[in-house]
């Protein structure tokens, strides 16, 4: 569920992804290699299901853009350790879908920009650009919402 939550727009969306992933796992259980960990196999199914959903929905993506200006304010680095899943999900949901996707695939799943480019059918340079923008935006959001709410 945690994997689906990172990719989904909402909790309901994550449940749908998880349901679809279970459905795929059940129907393709014959493809599972028992020599390998089930968790890894199923995690990949969840990620692929989320990516399929992104591809299907991307035509309706409003394509919101943000300025990359980050105010010069000292960051409370210690506060990062106090971020819980709900805080992170809140930050993620403020990101455009394609930025969030690239961020998750690169930072969490460990894909390279070349691999992300192949998965999302974009150039590796575009993937790098999305990642940079996602990082900047996350930093700005952290300042605006997390630090201010705590202060």
């Amino acid at each position, binding site marked *: 569920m*945690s*994997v689906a939550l*990172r990719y989904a727009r909402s909790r309901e969306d994550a449940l749908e992804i998880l349901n679809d992933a279970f459905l795929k796992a*059940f129907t393709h259980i014959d493809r599972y290699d028992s020599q390998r960990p089930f968790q890894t196999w199923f995690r990949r199914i969840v990620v692929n299901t989320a990516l399929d959903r992104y*591809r*299907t929905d991307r035509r309706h993506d409003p394509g919101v853009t943000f300025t990359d200006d980050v105010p010069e304010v000292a*960051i409370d680095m210690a506060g990062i350790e106090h971020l*819980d899943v709900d805080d*992170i999900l809140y930050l993620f949901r403020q990101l455009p879908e394609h930025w969030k996707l690239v961020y998750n695939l690169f930072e969490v799943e460990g894909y390279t920009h070349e691999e992300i480019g192949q998965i999302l059918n974009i150039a590796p340079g575009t993937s790098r650009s999305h990642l940079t923008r996602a990082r900047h935006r996350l930093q700005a959001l*952290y300042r605006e919402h997390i630090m201010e709410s705590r202060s």
Partner: protein
Amino acid sequence: MNPFDRQLADRVRRAFDAYQEEPLADGFATLSEKMRAQDPTAPTIAGRIFAIGIPLAAAASVILAVGLTFWRTTTGPASIDVVPRAQIQSETPAARSTSVEVAVVSQPSAVIQIPDLSSHLLASLPEPETEPEGIGAVPPQPDSVIDETPPAVVFSPANTIRKPDPVRVAPSNRRMAWNRRIEWVAGTVSSWSSDQMANGIGYTAGMVGHMAARQGVRVSVGALVNHNRFVIDTDIDLAARIQTLTEEVGVFSATVPGGVEYDLMSIDLPVHVSVDIAQIRSGTFSLSTGMSAMWFIRQTFRDETLLLNATVTTNTDTGVKQTLIRTSSQTRTESIRSLNRSETAGYVHFAFGFTAHPDRLPIGVDLYAKFPVSDATRRDIVYGMGGITLRYRVR
């Protein structure tokens, strides 16, 4: 990558790795419902048998028809002549004049057989008066045409450039000679899935060539572009779903899959056999059957989903149950552009047609149906199509 980014990414990984969620009480029920819900979209066992049985029977009939046609072609009575009677009559005078020409130039046989080299032959033709006697030359005939006719007349273009003599074609070769016809084809396409007729209409257009294997039997091949656009509704009882949803007090939500709109473009490569079944003064009725290979070059799917949100309350004073239902719809579009993914599918084709007499109008019309022999498109749907096409003879 600055320290903030590194630390945030590390925190994201650890937070989600440690995240555990309580299993949903109705999680398995939802999943089971979803697995059951897949059944209506996929053909049932009976539906599959129906969908596959008809095409198999149709394929068998095609093989039978083609086999019977060729058997009759090869073993049919020799008295049946492909060349029309009128054509033979018109060619007879020409044949006679040709034989006269042969008589005129009958002296050196090599000269007669290579008429295209007439100018060279004219230059190399030995002059009758200078030709030594007895060196392979034809002895002078007292009544020889050469002696009486100047050589320039003998090798005039009209005499030397001769067309093949149709009379000399053997009867067996005449039967093998095929008449050819090329037609533009344009028409409508209506589609159906294994269990319902689909809403929407498409078009088909292209070119088909017909080759007569024998009198009244033709083999046709061609290439057409098909554009199928149709909607297949999901057979879900919405009222029953709402009733189930609102049986108990509380807040409930559900999604109901709606129709799916298919927008498909394909290249159709048909191979058909047509047999004339009846002739009237204005034209000919025919039946045709064959196979079509369909190559999908564009696929677009639009899924409609209805979102239901129900709030059921009970008035504590009156005990009356109140239900508030909110609905919204969601559309998802999946599009596969040209050449990104192409698939082929097989279809068995049947048609009943009418072709106007060539002397009257160069057109024909067909009522056709194509039955699927396999599933097709990214969604693996099994669908057939039918409609009416107009043919216009261009050659």
